[in-house]
């Protein structure tokens, strides 16, 4: 027989998170698969959109930044710039769509949360996993684009690092999604702020340009440049996109220091997100 005890302290215990999640893993998978099926059900082209979206974005940005716009460093020629761009774009789209979906997820499932008890973590995590499925399609698309533009040889063994980097990104995004979705329940301002932050983040991350390593080209003293670089690297997507590029575009072993830094940042944010979420989760229903 299941005995449930509901007290304020009990429900907010961090140690309960993992058993709770373990018990609801099937629910989690079901939520993800149903959401995916539902998302494309009423679209005539269905899943094709998951491929088409990053490709179209890439085409637009390649035309703008590759042919028309400014002399950004290391942008390369048309073809290689397109791949370079897609390499940053696919992880960024995963990041931004997971955060947008994740942040809104608790509000979107408000009626459910108000009526039924289940571990609330399931909701933002399902949203992130949803975005992850699209990201996987995005990476597959990237590989196909590389083969089409530069031949089969352009796919190197270093692709094997991609799952590890993606793993770090998933941990990071889950942490952020839990944090933001919890705050968004209390203040919907969070959702609006996120949109602005993502618009800024797109340019503050090395997507359309390469990582300005050590900022040497800036007209400031080396010390200031060093600090600017550190500040820039506080953006977790900066290191992640650079790692992806190392593995996919440059076909080299990703920078181990950068890798460690990204992993550290992701784990800290994940634990923080989990802590914040669990502290607020028991009373979400009162605020939705």
């Amino acid at each position: 027989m299941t005995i449930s005890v509901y007290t304020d302290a009990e429900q907010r215990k961090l140690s309960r998170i993992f058993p709770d999640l373990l018990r609801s893993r099937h629910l989690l998978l079901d939520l993800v698969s149903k959401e995916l099926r539902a998302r494309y059900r009423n679209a005539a082209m269905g899943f094709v959109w998951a491929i088409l979206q990053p490709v179209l974005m890439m085409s637009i940005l390649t035309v703008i930044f590759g042919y028309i716009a400014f002399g950004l460093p290391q942008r390369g020629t048309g073809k290689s710039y397109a791949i370079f761009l897609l390499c940053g774009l696919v992880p960024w789209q995963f990041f931004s769509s997971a955060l947008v979906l994740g942040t809104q997820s608790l509000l979107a499932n408000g009626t459910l949360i108000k009526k039924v008890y289940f571990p609330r973590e399931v909701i933002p995590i399902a949203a992130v996993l949803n975005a992850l499925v699209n990201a996987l399609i995005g990476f597959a698309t990237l590989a196909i684009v590389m083969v089409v533009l530069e031949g089969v040889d352009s796919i190197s063994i270093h692709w094997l690092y991609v799952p590890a980097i993606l793993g770090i990104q998933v941990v990071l995004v889950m942490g952020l999604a839990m944090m933001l979705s919890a705050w968004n329940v209390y203040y919907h301002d969070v959702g609006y702020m996120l949109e602005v932050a993502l618009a800024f983040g797109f340019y503050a991350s090395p997507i359309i340009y390469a990582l300005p390593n050590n900022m040497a080209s800036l007209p400031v003293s080396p010390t200031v440049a060093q600090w600017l670089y550190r500040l820039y690297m506080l953006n977790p997507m900066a290191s992640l996109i650079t790692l992806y590029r190392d593995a996919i575009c440059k076909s080299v072993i990703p920078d181990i220091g950068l890798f460690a830094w990204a992993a550290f940042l992701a784990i800290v944010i994940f634990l923080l997100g989990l802590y914040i979420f669990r502290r607020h989760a028991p009373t979400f229903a009162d605020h939705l």
Partner: protein
Amino acid sequence: MAIIQIQNVTKTFRLRRGAQTLLTKGGLRALWRPRERLNALDDISFEIEPGRSVGIIGRNGSGKSTLLKIMAGVTVPTSGSVTVRGRLVSLLELGAGFHPLLTGRENIFLNGQILGMSRAQMQRAFDDIVEFSGIADSIDNPVNTYSSGMFVRLGFAVAVHTNPDIFLVDEVLSVGDEEFQRRCRSRINELRQQGKTIVFVSHDLNIVNALCDDVILLKKGQIVSRGAPRTIIDLYLRQLGREISAGSTTATFYQGAIVLAHGGLTITQSVHLHTQTHIDHMWAMSHDMQWDDAIVEDGCLRATGRSHRYPYRQHWELRPAGDDTFVFKVWFEAFEPMDIQEYNVSLGLRPEYTFWQTEHASGAFPPFDPKETEWRHVNRSYTSARTVGAGGENLPSVQIEATGQSESFRMTLINTGYEQHTRVLQAMRTPDGSQGLHFEKGRFLWFEGLVRVKKDSECSGTV
């Protein structure tokens, strides 16, 4: 051991600060002031034994829904603890977890998992769910193509087939069509017989009365009383409504119905003393109208109710006229010219009332047929009459007498359906011709009559 144990539960809400508060209540400084607090539940303790069905009643804001949410684990108490021994499913707003774009089939599995069932368990229950919900034909259509009735049916079917030990029921029985409501109620009765524990929250006191062993009355987050349904419901009605008395008979107004009690014993039930109006082939009951708080002035009770659907109001007046007798007047106020097929004043009585009498005939009420869901006329009188009365063993006799009007009424007697289990005395005003009753804009006296309650149970002695 108690299946649900509530110990010293207090739930405090801090009122939220939105832009609205900032704009209206002292601007940004409001951010530094502590937020206002509201105790929805105030140190409540009680236990529910396995196999009992317990009703929770109380006004809006008395903490009923909060209590139910805490039992369901949807939210946690600010202090105190809730212990639930067994699996619990809440029928709060059915189909809450349905995804509109997914098919009924997909939603059954998803909803089952949300309610804590495994896929295999749902697979086994699947056929029963489809059968019970009666939507086998559309099971593979997206649920956003379903009617609201189908939606609720499917939600209910999934919930009851997850085989929990405890059900929380919140106003569910007021949705869907009549047929579905009947099935719901009989299903809940089945669950009771299977020894499931059921907790009800409802405004519908008839359902609470019919389905509960035990009722808890809440007021401002505290338990006022707990006991047998009729005792607690009477207490609640007395607390709620306005009350006047004539001799040892009291009349209490409660949202479009008047409850009569004689010497502390409530003799009316279900619909109590009320009116019904037949417009556009639909019966509108007075308790579905929007009623102002009744007022008692000079020993006279007055109330005004407005129809939600049609442009009219009703004004009621109940005045004591000697021992155990009231004068009941009903005015109809049309805001524009209206056509009405017929209307009546009816009195719902306890099932222990066994015989009836009008000035033309008399007889015994037949027993209630368990299969009957509709109201059934006991007498077929098409001649106008002025009085109708009923009596029963150890019960005071009750009589309605139409007075002071030239219009004729037909006095009829009715057995309600099995679930309601109520005898009804009815003074029915029907049109003289076939074209219905036409009312111009204005206020009309619809009914004036006496409601008499007498101690002796000899019906013949009173009529």
